[in-house]
């Protein structure tokens, strides 16, 4: 029933449309409310979030250690911006769903004076991790995920070096909650080894990543010394999947959704199959591997498929001393994009690879299919301990992180957000 003098519009707060220019804290305001529910968890680690490096490309180009490539890139950027050298694929501009998911195209939000508040990217990450309630966030690149397909191998080498330098020397020192992985220019094994030597002892570089969009067999002999070196550091080797519409099979797919749904899984399926069938886990038993951004449904599929065939064709996988699924149960997997439509299937999937100890929460923020921590906390079949493990404690083991709270209390974050609007 209406009151005789109902409240007028002036007594309520209007919420604006979310756009590419929205402040991250407004964009993720609902995640801040969700964070109240896991505020007592010991540690929350997001093992896969992304730099949209287009906004900082000039800085990374500025660190190129090759005069010809640097001049080439600067000349290309002059006047029309863009991301020279990156070998961008056709179709990637469809990621934001024609503007339906604005954060994919950002960030364009204003930030404070970097001299006082830190690098613009650091400011934006701080907004994200406070609002989502994260202690640590591990940063990956975005456009560089496709760099492995660049036919100019020297570009991958020099961009890898420049990116690692920018991340390790410009960004990470500004906030201990921001950590990263060294990008391995996998088309050139000797250069990968140099980066492992350079960053093996760097505490802010917590692992090494192979951006998986590439046509290089991971079992090739030329990589054995690299894997030995990474194993020696005690840091993980992380395979990050990605999209690639130019792959001949995917060129049959006429919509971005089709390519995206298959492509991310495809590359990790291929690399995992080579990794297992060639018995890499037997050769490098202490090397921790993490498989990122392919969702979860592919894991039991590949376990069943490889177990089935290995029993019949043992002579083609003679290095294995156990079934493929048993090796896979000792690997680590990131949670996003979690297929949550059928919870019965998801529960069975998680059981198949012991998610309680092997699954690592990842947001993929700010990409269009990101998962907030609530994607884990709201699963009805997980125990409280399983949620704590997946959200942070498992990642602490893999990435050698201290279990020590660094994030502010969720109520404090919400109070600060309310203050911004009063």
């Amino acid at each position: 029933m209406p009151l005789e003098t109902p409240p007028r519009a002036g007594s309520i707060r209007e919420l604006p449309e979310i756009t590419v220019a929205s402040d991250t804290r407004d964009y993720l305001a609902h995640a801040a409310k969700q964070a109240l529910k896991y505020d007592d968890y010991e540690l929350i680690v997001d093992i896969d979030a992304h730099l949209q490096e287009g906004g900082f490309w000039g800085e990374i180009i500025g660190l190129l250690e090759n005069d010809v490539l640097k001049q080439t890139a600067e000349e290309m950027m002059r006047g029309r911006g863009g991301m020279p050298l990156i070998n961008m694929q056709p179709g990637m501009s469809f990621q934001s769903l024609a503007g339906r998911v604005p954060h994919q195209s950002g960030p364009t939000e204003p930030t404070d004076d970097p001299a006082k508040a830190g690098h613009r990217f650091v400011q934006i990450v701080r907004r994200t991790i406070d609002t989502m309630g994260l202690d640590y966030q591990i940063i990956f690149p975005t456009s560089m995920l496709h760099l492995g397909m660049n036919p100019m191998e020297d570009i991958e080498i020099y961009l890898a070096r420049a990116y690692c330098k920018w991340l390790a020397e410009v960004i990470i020192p500004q906030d201990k909650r921001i950590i990263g992985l060294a990008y391995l220019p996998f088309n050139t094994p000797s250069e990968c080894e140099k980066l492992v030597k350079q960053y093996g002892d760097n505490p802010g570089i917590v692992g090494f990543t192979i951006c998986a969009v590439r046509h290089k067999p991971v079992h090739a002999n030329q990589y054995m010394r690299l894997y030995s070196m990474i194993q020696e550091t005690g840091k993980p080797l992380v395979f990050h999947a990605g999209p690639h519409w130019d792959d001949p099979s995917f060129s049959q797919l006429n919509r971005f959704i089709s390519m995206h749904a298959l492509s991310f899984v495809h590359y990790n399926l291929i690399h995992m199959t080579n990794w297992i069938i060639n018995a890499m886990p037997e050769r490098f038993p202490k090397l921790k591997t993490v498989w990122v951004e392919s969702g979860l449904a592919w894991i039991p599929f590949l376990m069943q498929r490889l177990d089935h065939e290995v029993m019949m064709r043992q002579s083609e996988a003679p290095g294995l001393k156990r079934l493929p699924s048993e090796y896979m149960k000792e690997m680590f997997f990131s949670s996003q994009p979690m297929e949550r439509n059928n919870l019965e299937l998801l529960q069975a999937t998680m059981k198949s690879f012991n998610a309680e100890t092997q699954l690592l929460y990842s947001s993929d923020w700010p990409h269009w299919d990101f998962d907030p921590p609530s994607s884990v906390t709201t699963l009805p079949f997980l125990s409280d301990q399983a949620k704590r493990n997946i959200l942070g404690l498992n990642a602490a083991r893999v990435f050698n992180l201290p279990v020590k709270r660094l994030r502010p209390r969720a109520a404090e974050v919400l109070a600060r957000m309310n203050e911004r609007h009063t």
Partner: protein
Amino acid sequence: MPDVIVGKAADFADPGRKVVDISGTEIGVFRLGDEFYAYHNICPHLDGPACQGKILPLATEAVCEDKSSTGRIYSKTQTNIICPWHGFEFDIRTGRHPTDGNVRLRPVPVSVRDGDVYVNVPVRN
């Protein structure tokens, strides 16, 4: 909680909306033609701010009589609100997802009286 005025009907664009936070309850109010619709600003997917996203017509596949397709075209009759977190779309008239109608925004009673738009704010537990 009683009815609350969220604004003048004449101030709404067509199509248009206003999303308001009333003592912690967020509600999106939409206008399509002469009709008003209201929903909680919570996406059934992962609680994103569904009502604060883009408003666009429903995309449809233009299938000819011979079953060939001439591509996608926008509907002339259905308008959707799109959650900015992940792109879930909902028919503004029904609150339902175009592909799976069981996935829907939670409606809020809305009315127009004497040119003012009222929503009935549910009591919070």
